[in-house]
Protein backbone atom coordinates (compact mmCIF):
# COMPACT_ATOMS: atom_id res chain seq x y z
CA UNK A 1 0.00 0.00 0.00
CA UNK A 2 2.27 2.77 1.22
CA UNK A 3 5.58 3.01 -0.56
CA UNK A 4 7.84 1.33 1.98
CA UNK A 5 10.99 3.35 2.32
CA UNK A 6 12.00 1.79 5.58
CA UNK A 7 8.80 0.68 7.16
CA UNK A 8 9.02 -0.12 10.86
CA UNK A 9 8.63 -3.87 11.19
CA UNK A 10 8.94 -4.46 14.89
CA UNK A 11 8.42 -2.43 18.02
CA UNK A 12 8.73 -3.05 21.76
CA UNK A 13 7.07 -0.60 24.11
CA UNK A 14 7.91 -0.30 27.81
CA UNK A 15 5.32 1.02 30.26
CA UNK A 16 6.64 1.75 33.75
CA UNK A 17 3.85 3.93 35.13
CA UNK A 18 0.28 3.40 36.27
CA UNK A 19 -0.79 6.90 35.25
CA UNK A 20 -3.55 7.01 32.70
CA UNK A 21 -1.61 9.00 30.12
CA UNK A 22 1.35 6.61 30.17
CA UNK A 23 -0.75 3.46 30.08
CA UNK A 24 -2.82 4.85 27.22
CA UNK A 25 0.22 6.04 25.29
CA UNK A 26 1.42 2.45 25.47
CA UNK A 27 -1.92 0.99 24.45
CA UNK A 28 -2.68 3.39 21.64
CA UNK A 29 0.80 3.16 20.14
CA UNK A 30 0.91 -0.59 20.65
CA UNK A 31 -2.52 -1.24 19.17
CA UNK A 32 -1.77 1.13 16.31
CA UNK A 33 1.38 -0.81 15.55
CA UNK A 34 -0.48 -4.13 15.54
CA UNK A 35 -3.12 -2.64 13.25
CA UNK A 36 -0.36 -1.67 10.85
CA UNK A 37 1.03 -5.17 10.72
CA UNK A 38 4.01 -4.31 12.92
CA UNK A 39 5.27 -7.05 15.24
CA UNK A 40 4.54 -5.65 18.69
CA UNK A 41 5.69 -6.38 22.25
CA UNK A 42 4.36 -4.54 25.28
CA UNK A 43 6.50 -4.79 28.39
CA UNK A 44 5.01 -3.67 31.71
CA UNK A 45 7.25 -2.93 34.66
CA UNK A 46 7.12 -1.14 38.02
CA UNK A 47 3.76 0.61 38.56
CA UNK A 48 2.99 -0.10 34.94
CA UNK A 49 2.17 -3.62 36.14
CA UNK A 50 -1.10 -2.21 37.48
CA UNK A 51 -2.33 -2.06 33.89
CA UNK A 52 -2.03 -5.85 33.58
CA UNK A 53 -2.98 -6.79 37.15
CA UNK A 54 -6.53 -8.18 37.28
CA UNK A 55 -7.62 -6.23 40.36
CA UNK A 56 -6.16 -2.93 39.16
CA UNK A 57 -6.28 -2.81 35.38
CA UNK A 58 -9.64 -1.11 35.14
CA UNK A 59 -8.83 1.38 37.88
CA UNK A 60 -6.09 3.24 36.06
CA UNK A 61 -6.41 6.91 36.95
CA UNK A 62 -5.19 10.26 35.74
CA UNK A 63 -3.04 11.94 38.40
CA UNK A 64 -4.06 15.34 39.66
CA UNK A 65 -1.16 16.18 41.95
CA UNK A 66 1.94 17.16 40.03
CA UNK A 67 0.05 17.26 36.76
CA UNK A 68 0.92 20.67 35.32
CA UNK A 69 -1.66 20.25 32.56
CA UNK A 70 -4.50 20.57 35.05
CA UNK A 71 -5.51 24.21 35.48
CA UNK A 72 -6.02 23.88 39.22
CA UNK A 73 -3.69 24.61 42.12
CA UNK A 74 -1.94 21.36 43.04
CA UNK A 75 -3.16 21.63 46.62
CA UNK A 76 -6.71 20.97 45.39
CA UNK A 77 -5.44 17.58 44.35
CA UNK A 78 -5.70 16.68 48.02
CA UNK A 79 -9.49 16.81 47.73
CA UNK A 80 -10.64 13.19 47.83
CA UNK A 81 -12.12 11.94 44.60
CA UNK A 82 -10.69 14.60 42.30
CA UNK A 83 -8.47 12.12 40.46
CA UNK A 84 -11.43 9.75 40.24
CA UNK A 85 -13.58 12.50 38.77
CA UNK A 86 -10.97 13.53 36.23
CA UNK A 87 -10.47 9.90 35.23
CA UNK A 88 -14.22 9.38 34.87
CA UNK A 89 -14.38 12.33 32.52
CA UNK A 90 -11.42 11.05 30.51
CA UNK A 91 -12.87 7.55 30.17
CA UNK A 92 -16.22 8.97 29.15
CA UNK A 93 -14.63 11.01 26.40
CA UNK A 94 -12.35 8.21 25.29
CA UNK A 95 -15.30 5.84 25.07
CA UNK A 96 -16.99 8.27 22.70
CA UNK A 97 -13.89 8.11 20.53
CA UNK A 98 -13.90 4.31 20.60
CA UNK A 99 -10.83 4.20 22.84
CA UNK A 100 -11.69 1.23 25.06
CA UNK A 101 -11.02 0.59 28.75
CA UNK A 102 -7.65 -0.99 29.58
CA UNK A 103 -8.72 -4.65 29.56
CA UNK A 104 -10.64 -4.42 26.32
CA UNK A 105 -7.77 -2.49 24.75
CA UNK A 106 -5.26 -5.17 25.76
CA UNK A 107 -7.60 -7.80 24.34
CA UNK A 108 -7.58 -5.95 21.03
CA UNK A 109 -3.78 -5.91 21.01
CA UNK A 110 -3.69 -9.61 21.80
CA UNK A 111 -6.35 -10.42 19.18
CA UNK A 112 -4.10 -8.89 16.56
CA UNK A 113 -1.09 -10.93 17.64
CA UNK A 114 0.59 -8.35 19.90
CA UNK A 115 2.45 -9.86 22.85
CA UNK A 116 2.15 -8.66 26.42
CA UNK A 117 4.89 -9.29 28.98
CA UNK A 118 5.43 -8.57 32.67
CA UNK A 119 8.81 -7.64 34.11
CA UNK A 120 10.12 -10.34 36.43
CA UNK A 121 11.99 -8.01 38.78
CA UNK A 122 8.91 -5.82 39.26
CA UNK A 123 6.60 -8.81 39.69
CA UNK A 124 8.87 -10.02 42.50
CA UNK A 125 9.17 -6.57 44.00
CA UNK A 126 5.42 -6.15 44.19
CA UNK A 127 4.92 -9.76 45.27
CA UNK A 128 2.70 -10.50 42.30
CA UNK A 129 2.32 -13.79 40.44
CA UNK A 130 1.04 -15.02 37.10
CA UNK A 131 -2.34 -15.74 38.73
CA UNK A 132 -2.76 -12.14 39.77
CA UNK A 133 -1.99 -10.89 36.28
CA UNK A 134 -4.49 -10.65 33.44
CA UNK A 135 -4.83 -13.96 31.54
CA UNK A 136 -3.62 -12.41 28.29
CA UNK A 137 -0.13 -11.79 29.68
CA UNK A 138 2.15 -14.03 27.65
CA UNK A 139 4.78 -14.48 30.34
CA UNK A 140 6.87 -12.94 33.08
CA UNK A 141 10.28 -12.24 31.63
CA UNK A 142 13.67 -10.90 32.63
CA UNK A 143 15.30 -7.83 31.19
CA UNK A 144 17.56 -10.12 29.19
CA UNK A 145 14.53 -11.89 27.74
CA UNK A 146 13.06 -8.53 26.88
CA UNK A 147 16.11 -7.53 24.88
CA UNK A 148 16.09 -10.92 23.14
CA UNK A 149 12.46 -10.48 22.20
CA UNK A 150 13.11 -6.93 21.04
CA UNK A 151 15.96 -7.97 18.75
CA UNK A 152 15.76 -6.48 15.30
CA UNK A 153 13.14 -3.93 16.32
CA UNK A 154 12.88 -0.58 17.97
CA UNK A 155 12.24 0.13 21.65
CA UNK A 156 10.03 2.90 23.01
CA UNK A 157 9.82 3.92 26.67
CA UNK A 158 6.54 5.69 27.33
Amino acid at each position, binding site marked *: *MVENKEKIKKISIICASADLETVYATLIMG*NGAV*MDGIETNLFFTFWGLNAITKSKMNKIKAPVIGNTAIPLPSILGLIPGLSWLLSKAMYWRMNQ*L*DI*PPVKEFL*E*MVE*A*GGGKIYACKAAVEMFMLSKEKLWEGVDSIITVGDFYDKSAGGQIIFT
Partner: protein
Amino acid sequence: MSTKNIAGKTIEVNEEGYLLNMADWTKEIALELAKEINLPPLTDKHWQVIDYLRKNQAEGVALSLRKVGNSGIVDVKELYALFPGGPLKKSALVAGIPKPASCV
Protein backbone atom coordinates in the same frame (compact mmCIF):
# COMPACT_ATOMS: atom_id res chain seq x y z
CA MET B 1 -4.43 11.84 -7.07
CA SER B 2 -4.19 9.58 -10.08
CA THR B 3 -6.35 7.32 -12.14
CA LYS B 4 -6.18 3.60 -12.29
CA ASN B 5 -7.48 1.01 -14.68
CA ILE B 6 -9.13 -1.70 -12.73
CA ALA B 7 -11.70 -4.37 -13.58
CA GLY B 8 -12.37 -2.64 -16.89
CA LYS B 9 -13.04 0.76 -15.34
CA THR B 10 -10.95 3.88 -15.00
CA ILE B 11 -11.25 5.18 -11.47
CA GLU B 12 -9.66 7.90 -9.40
CA VAL B 13 -7.48 6.82 -6.52
CA ASN B 14 -5.22 8.63 -4.08
CA GLU B 15 -1.46 8.06 -3.82
CA GLU B 16 -2.06 5.08 -1.52
CA GLY B 17 -4.55 3.45 -3.83
CA TYR B 18 -7.75 4.32 -1.94
CA LEU B 19 -10.74 5.09 -4.15
CA LEU B 20 -11.57 8.78 -4.16
CA ASN B 21 -15.19 8.14 -4.94
CA MET B 22 -16.91 5.31 -3.16
CA ALA B 23 -19.60 5.32 -5.85
CA ASP B 24 -17.01 4.04 -8.34
CA TRP B 25 -16.74 0.82 -6.39
CA THR B 26 -17.95 -2.51 -7.72
CA LYS B 27 -17.50 -6.05 -6.48
CA GLU B 28 -15.14 -6.69 -9.40
CA ILE B 29 -12.99 -3.79 -8.27
CA ALA B 30 -12.97 -5.17 -4.73
CA LEU B 31 -11.78 -8.53 -6.03
CA GLU B 32 -8.96 -6.90 -8.00
CA LEU B 33 -7.88 -4.71 -5.07
CA ALA B 34 -7.93 -7.69 -2.72
CA LYS B 35 -5.65 -9.55 -5.10
CA GLU B 36 -3.30 -6.58 -5.36
CA ILE B 37 -2.77 -6.47 -1.60
CA ASN B 38 -2.46 -10.25 -1.37
CA LEU B 39 -5.52 -10.92 0.71
CA PRO B 40 -6.72 -14.48 1.04
CA PRO B 41 -9.64 -15.27 -1.32
CA LEU B 42 -12.66 -13.22 -0.29
CA THR B 43 -15.26 -15.11 1.71
CA ASP B 44 -18.81 -14.28 2.77
CA LYS B 45 -17.40 -12.77 5.95
CA HIS B 46 -15.18 -10.44 3.93
CA TRP B 47 -18.19 -9.22 1.96
CA GLN B 48 -20.21 -8.72 5.12
CA VAL B 49 -17.42 -6.58 6.58
CA ILE B 50 -17.12 -4.67 3.31
CA ASP B 51 -20.88 -4.00 3.27
CA TYR B 52 -20.74 -2.88 6.87
CA LEU B 53 -17.87 -0.48 6.18
CA ARG B 54 -19.54 0.99 3.13
CA LYS B 55 -22.79 1.46 4.97
CA ASN B 56 -21.07 3.19 7.89
CA GLN B 57 -19.07 5.38 5.55
CA ALA B 58 -22.22 6.41 3.69
CA GLU B 59 -23.77 7.36 7.03
CA GLY B 60 -20.70 9.31 8.07
CA VAL B 61 -19.81 7.01 10.97
CA ALA B 62 -16.11 7.14 11.85
CA LEU B 63 -14.40 3.80 11.45
CA SER B 64 -12.59 2.11 14.34
CA LEU B 65 -11.32 -1.35 15.14
CA ARG B 66 -13.57 -1.47 18.18
CA LYS B 67 -16.66 -0.63 16.15
CA VAL B 68 -16.06 -3.37 13.61
CA GLY B 69 -15.21 -5.76 16.44
CA ASN B 70 -18.56 -4.98 18.07
CA SER B 71 -20.51 -5.05 14.82
CA GLY B 72 -21.81 -8.55 15.37
CA ILE B 73 -20.23 -9.60 12.07
CA VAL B 74 -16.75 -10.42 13.28
CA ASP B 75 -14.79 -10.00 16.47
CA VAL B 76 -11.41 -8.28 16.43
CA LYS B 77 -9.50 -11.52 16.07
CA GLU B 78 -11.59 -12.64 13.11
CA LEU B 79 -11.17 -9.25 11.47
CA TYR B 80 -7.39 -9.65 11.72
CA ALA B 81 -7.70 -13.10 10.16
CA LEU B 82 -9.74 -11.72 7.24
CA PHE B 83 -7.44 -8.75 6.62
CA PRO B 84 -4.01 -9.78 7.92
CA GLY B 85 -1.67 -6.97 8.82
CA GLY B 86 -4.25 -4.25 8.24
CA PRO B 87 -7.70 -4.90 9.67
CA LEU B 88 -8.91 -1.38 9.02
CA LYS B 89 -6.61 -0.08 6.31
CA LYS B 90 -6.89 -3.12 4.07
CA SER B 91 -10.61 -3.59 4.59
CA ALA B 92 -11.22 0.10 3.85
CA LEU B 93 -9.12 -0.10 0.70
CA VAL B 94 -11.04 -3.09 -0.63
CA ALA B 95 -14.36 -1.55 0.40
CA GLY B 96 -13.58 1.51 -1.68
CA ILE B 97 -13.82 3.94 1.22
CA PRO B 98 -11.18 6.43 2.43
CA LYS B 99 -8.28 5.31 4.57
CA PRO B 100 -9.46 5.35 8.20
CA ALA B 101 -8.48 8.55 9.98
CA SER B 102 -8.76 6.99 13.44
CA CYS B 103 -5.83 5.99 15.68
CA VAL B 104 -7.83 3.14 17.12
